[in-house]
C-alpha cells in the first residue's frame, strides 16, 4: 500500500511503499515510482500516513 508521509519539520512530503513492517520512501527516480503510477492508473489514491 502506498502512503504520503509529511515531514512536520521540513513541511515536505514523500511517497512511501508500506510492505509489511518495511516502509520505503521513494522519488520519481526510483523503480518503485513506475509501479506506483500503474497503481494510481487503476484508480487508487495514496492516503496521508497518520502513523496509525
Amino acid at each position: 500500500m502506498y502512503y504520503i508521509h509529511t515531514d512536520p519539520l521540513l513541511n515536505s512530503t514523500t511517497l512511501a511503499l508500506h510492505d509489511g513492517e518495511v516502509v520505503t520512501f521513494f522519488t520519481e527516480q526510483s523503480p518503485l515510482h513506475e509501479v506506483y503510477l500503474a497503481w494510481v492508473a487503476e484508480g487508487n489514491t495514496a492516503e496521508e500516513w497518520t502513523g496509525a
Partner: protein
Amino acid sequence: MGITQQIGASSLIKPGVIDNAAARPASPFEGQVIFQKDTDQLLVWNGTAWVIPNSPAQNPQALELVTTCTVTSAGGTAATASGGVVTIGTGNTSVTVDNAFSANYDNYKIVVAGGTSSTQDALKFEIGGSTGSYYGAYLFANYTTNTPSALGMNNASSFVYAGGTNIGQVVMNLEVQSPFLAKFTYIQALSTIYQNNYGHAVCDHEVASSYTSFKIIPNSGTITGGTLRVYGYRNS
C-alpha cells in the same frame, strides 16, 4: 638426496610440534617456538607465557573469524558453510546461520559481501528465531532529494532495516553486542541501502535470552551468491 626424500617427512621426529596445550614443553626457554596442532597456532615462549608471535597474548582480544558457523536456507538451492565462510545459495528467501554466537565472544561483526538480489528492498535480521520485541530507528536520506528522514521500529518482528538488497549487491554490515549473554541484544547497521535510500539503523532486541544463531531475510524477492562472515571480538 635429502633424508626426507628417502623416508618421507612424516616419518621424521618433529621438534616443536605438539598435539595440545597439555603437551607444551614443561621448562621452555625464552624465544622457544612450538606449533600446537589442535588449535593450529604458532606460539613463542616470551619468558612468561606462550603467545602468538608479535602479540603480547596467546589469544589476542581482537576480531577473529568465527569458524564454527553452520547454515541452512529456504528457497532455491542451499547455502553452504566452510571454515566460517557462508556462501548464500541461489534464489534464497532466507539464510539461517547457526553456531555463530558463543561464550568466546560478547560482541560480533557480521558482514555480507557480493551477491545479487531479485528486488531492491530492505534486508531483515532475526536473532535466534525470535520474532518480536525489536525496537529501533532507521535514519537515512534519499540521495536525489537530500532530505533527512527517519523510520521507527516499535516491537517489530525483526530488525527490518538491517541491510539492503540492490540487484547487483547484497548489503549488510552489522555490529552486534551480547547476543550470547542472557541480556538484551544491541545491533547497529552501518549500511542500510536500498531504493536510493542511504542510512544507518540502530536496534535492540528486548528479550534477555542467550542466542547462538541468526537469520537474514530479504523483505521481498530472493538473494543469490555472495558471502557472509561472522567475526567475534575475543573475550580472553
